């Protein structure tokens, strides 16, 4: 409790501090960014992000209250303490929780871990921290001139360019790619030549496929592209001049040109004598994992780094869960308890309402919504709204039964006689006594949310493409089965997350079970 409070206080304070100082701190910047992006969360005209400030204030106050209460509320409830102890004893669930918390921590590192903006740049003797600045720096700020001077700074390129010159330095995040909006140039992989035959890496089989000589390997600028069979150039070859104009066609057989045609500037020999890279295997997107290029899990067919994309998807899942769970539980619990506590007409009408809601075909609603919503509002908020609209019914029935059972108990009657108001009875007396139902349900709701987000994105009715989503990656992988790294990495990530959450859920359920030994044991 104390720890949670402290954490919340810290986050709120960081958010407010970052906003005042013009810093973009990982995760803490999020409240203000949301506030700026969503039209109704800021005061129109003055651009005042009230939602951001509200969140920051709530976090600080809530955190303070939690810390204070942890000191004033006296000794811990022995039942709770026993449950916690039992949970820690169930190792599988306990370690899963630790892993999940660690994942959450990693997800919170945000641009400090994954992103195309440098963590720190030392330029002309001064240190700059672009990743933590709210405004993008431009190439011209780092002395780049020419056509790209006005473009946002390309730190990966700066790092390459400054490798030789020692006075300037760039420190990139561990994964120097953005999850989305960062299409990489086509990738390439080193080839090794043995006895005139080319092999891919340390492979023993001669290389089959496309190879190229590059003007610029990192930018994917090709000078000559050949087809290779059994490790030798065989088949059609194309050449481009430095401006990207096609100037050369040829037909090769066993490494020798059979026929060729050159129609560029100057003579053919000059074209061949230009300074270019060695022959490299061309890996168009989706490219397989190429550690030498920094793509540990390959790239998607869009040209995004798979690892960065998975990370972005993880962040989206956590964000969605943090918003979705409290709201759904607030509605579901309140409604369910009221149904059970009041009974009678209210119960009957509510039950019918819930029946109607649960019979509406969810997918159709989503499809209709996604074609109706103006593009301005598309994004996580609208999808979550729809999910919440159809997600709160599940727990009402459980809460209803619990309230029905407990409302005849003596402690409720006692509270009534003492003159407690209905909300007080519901939330201070009834709710703590049904907590085990809620807590056991939470992990399963979360895994349900992750799967429904994934499936919606898979079907193409989910989040817009600026969000990294596992569903879209899965879809990409299934339509590119020849690129198995897409589907395997997504599948493993998704299954691992769901398994972890399920383990936690099982452990919580067991820890909160009044009977110590259950059939599950």
């Amino acid at each position: 409790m104390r720890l949670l409070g402290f954490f919340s206080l810290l986050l709120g304070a960081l958010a407010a501090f970052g906003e005042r100082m013009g810093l973009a701190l990982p995760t803490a910047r999020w409240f203000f960014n949301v506030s700026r992006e969503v039209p109704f969360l800021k005061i129109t005209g003055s651009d005042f992000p009230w939602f951001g400030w509200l969140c920051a204030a709530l976090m600080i106050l809530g955190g303070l209250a939690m810390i204070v209460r942890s000191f004033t509320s006296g000794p811990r409830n022995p039942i709770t303490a026993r449950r916690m102890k039992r949970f820690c004893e169930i190792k599988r669930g306990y370690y899963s929780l630790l892993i999940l918390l660690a994942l959450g921590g990693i997800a919170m590192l945000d641009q400090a871990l994954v992103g195309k903006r440098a963590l720190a740049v030392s330029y002309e003797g001064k240190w700059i921290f672009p990743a933590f600045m709210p405004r993008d720096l431009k190439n011209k700020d780092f002395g780049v001139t020419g056509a790209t001077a006005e473009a946002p700074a390309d730190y990966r390129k700066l790092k390459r360019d400054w490798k030789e010159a020692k006075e300037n330095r760039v420190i990139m995040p561990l994964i120097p790619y953005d999850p989305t909006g960062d299409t990489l140039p086509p990738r390439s992989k080193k080839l090794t030549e043995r006895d005139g035959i080319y092999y891919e890496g340390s492979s023993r089989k001669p290389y089959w496929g496309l190879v190229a000589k590059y003007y610029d390997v990192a930018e994917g600028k090709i000078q000559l592209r050949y087809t290779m069979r059994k490790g030798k150039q065989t088949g059609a070859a194309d050449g481009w001049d430095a401006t990207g104009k096609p100037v050369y066609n040829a037909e090769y057989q066993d490494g020798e040109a059979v026929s060729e045609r050159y129609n560029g500037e100057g003579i053919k020999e000059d074209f061949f004598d230009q300074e270019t890279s060695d022959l490299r295997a061309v890996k168009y997107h989706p490219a397989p994992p190429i550690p030498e290029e920094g793509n540990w899990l390959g790239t998607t067919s869009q040209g995004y780094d798979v690892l960065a994309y998975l990370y972005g998807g993880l962040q989206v899942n956590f964000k969605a869960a943090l918003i979705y769970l409290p709201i759904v539980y607030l509605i579901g619990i309140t409604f369910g308890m009221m149904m059970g506590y009041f009974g009678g007409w209210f119960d009957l009408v509510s039950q019918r309402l819930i029946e109607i809601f649960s019979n509406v075909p969810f997918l159709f609603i989503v499809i209709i919504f996604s074609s109706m919503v103006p593009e301005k509002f598309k994004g996580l908020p609208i999808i979550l709204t729809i999910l919440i609209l159809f997600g709160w019914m599940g727990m009402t029935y459980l809460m209803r039964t619990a309230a029905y059972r407990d409302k005849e108990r003596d402690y409720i009657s006692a509270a009534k006689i003492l003159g407690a108001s209905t909300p007080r009875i519901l939330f201070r007396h009834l709710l703590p006594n049904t907590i085990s139902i809620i807590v056991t349900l939470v992990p399963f709701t979360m895994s349900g949310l992750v799967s429904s987000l994934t499936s919606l994105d898979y079907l193409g009715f989910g989040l817009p493409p600026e969000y990294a989503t596992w569903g879209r990656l899965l879809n990409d992988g299934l339509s590119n089965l020849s690129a198995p790294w897409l589907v395997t990495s997504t599948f493993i990530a998704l299954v691992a997350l769901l398994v972890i959450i399920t383990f936690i859920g099982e452990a919580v359920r067991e820890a909160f079970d009044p009977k110590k030994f259950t059939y599950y044991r």
Partner: protein
Amino acid sequence: MSRYLTNSLKSGWSVSLQSVQGASRSFVLFVTLLCFLATSCRKETTETARKLEFDAFVPVYNRYIENWLKTQQAETEKEIAKVTTDLATAEGDAKTALEAKAKALQQDQEKWNFRLGLGPYLKFSNPSEMPTDLVWENGMDQPEIGDPRAKKGGVFRRSIPEFPPTLRPFGNNSNHSFRGDLYELIDMKLITFHPETMKLIPGVAREWSSSADKRTIYFRLDPEARYSDGNPVKARDYLISAYVRVSDNLVNPYQKQYFREEIAQIAMYDDLTLSISLPEASVFGPLNAGELTPSSPVFYAEYGPDYDLRYQWRFPPTTAAYEVRPKDIIKGVSITQTRVKNWWAKDRKYYKYRFNPDKLIHTVVRDSNKDFELFRASEIDTSLVTSPELWYEKCEIPPVHEGYIERATFYRRYPRIPRGLYLNLWKKPLDNLDVRIGINHAIHWQKVIDVIFRGDAQRLNSMNEGFVGLSDPLIRARPYSIEAARAAFAKAGYTIEDSDGILKKADGTRLSIALTHRKEPSFERMCSILRQEAKACGLDLRLDGLESTVTYKKAMQKQHEMIFWGWNTDPPVPDFYQLMHSSTAFDETGKPKVDTNNFFTWARADTDSLSEMVRNATTPEDLKNAMQSLQRIIHDEAIFVPGYSVDFARIASWRWVRWPDCEDTRFSPPVTLDPHEMFVYWIDDDIKKETLAARRSGKTFPESTRVFDDYREKAPEKEEGNEP
């Protein structure tokens, strides 16, 4: 707005009438009704006997057309009067616009007068009425099509994505994806164009000739032309062809409109001579008039109000090379086309090396991935593998390496599909030229080409590029340039940079444009790249991915700001009228007109007359000038951001499918989207046996990947013959 009223005479020939607006015209309607009542057709049609009923139809339809023309004439007359009075008080731009309108109306009026002067729409005439000074052409001086080595015979197997809902060539549901294979692609028209030289070549007509005013084209049919049932083709069959399509026995609004508005008269002189008149003369008049196909009176003997159902699965006798026999229709599974025995045109110059296989089997395969797998398993003979994934990855399979499957890249010369971003000038800030120019510089198509198309596609340079001899080859699309884009945006007043790098005006207006596109994975990928690169120029592209019908509807309602779109192109000549004419831009209230193809909401007097000129030019020179001026205006006004184009087709085929490789035809004639559609391939059964035996015994052939780049567009600034 025009809508169709159906004459509700209980049993009379009910004929489509254009809706009549205003009290004065209801009189005309009344007169028309009286006319129908006065005819004797009522008695005839109460019978349900199965007869063609053609002779009874002719006077009714002729009268209908005459009345319709008179209505149009009166209406145009009234409009001319209105414009003339308006013109007296108008000044400046409004005056030029009105003058252009008056000119267009005069032209319309002249058209109605000409058509009324022609006499009956369906006319039975005699040879003495033909002009005596006609100069007949036969188009026999063009190169042959196909390879003389082509062998007749064999079976060609391919897949279709869905089974057609009907075999009828017209009527309800007939506009399905398979109709091209059944009709348009193989039909013998009166005359057609040569798919390489674009000159006219004979079809069912052996000779043709234009009248002095170029509006009437005379055709002499080939005396040997036969339907697949052996009956000879007669001139009267072309009149019947019109009848079965326009009568009220079926709902067929587009073709009814076509016959009413695009054709002025169909007349026959004797069994083998007919003429077709067009409302206006144009360069491609003979080609347009020569599009008609005949309809066999024997086949349509049972034609009547239940046509749709009765003829649902009957394949009409055809003059083309392939027919569908009733036993070859396996519903939901496959359709087989069989080569007509002793086809009348089998030795004709332009057809003798085409349509070679004896049978074409089309099997339904709904999943495109499965289609490739079937090809790989040699259940299908060829596969179109133009997409980079198919070409570079899926084709890297043993049958290709071992030479059983041969691959070819064929550069074609087909008009480029105008695919790109269409800017709606009705929406702010797109009304500002500088903003539009900035957008043109801020859209990075080259990166899309490099990443998504693996460098294989080409940048499209202009709207309607690639019409041979017509398009302006000098127009170059504006390249992606951060500097140029920012300079243009600054000129439009977007000078301040927001915290996220997006430009805004001094009053806080952000440079943010919605880009509507179809929600398909590949389009989403392209638009994400465009968005990412536009951001570097300070332009915020809001991606608005919608389901495809919603996308279309949004654009039709002119609710889009910018839309990613591509129109179909059809050689030999493009149409600018529906894209740019002011009549398609705004309605009477000054709001954008809905349900038109003018996605730009573009209206200007000079483009009106130019786009009309493209439709009605009578000399190739006028046509070319008008078209190039329009292309130039589109470029200068930056209302279209040209996207990408793919100017080749890549085909993988099993060894036994042979493609031409001779002097006249290298692989395929160039004016085609898909070389299959030219029917110049053939099946070599000997090679098939050899290949199958080789596969069993493990013998391999050298891998074959050929490039046919005879028609590849060369870099314009480089002279030919500069090869080392």
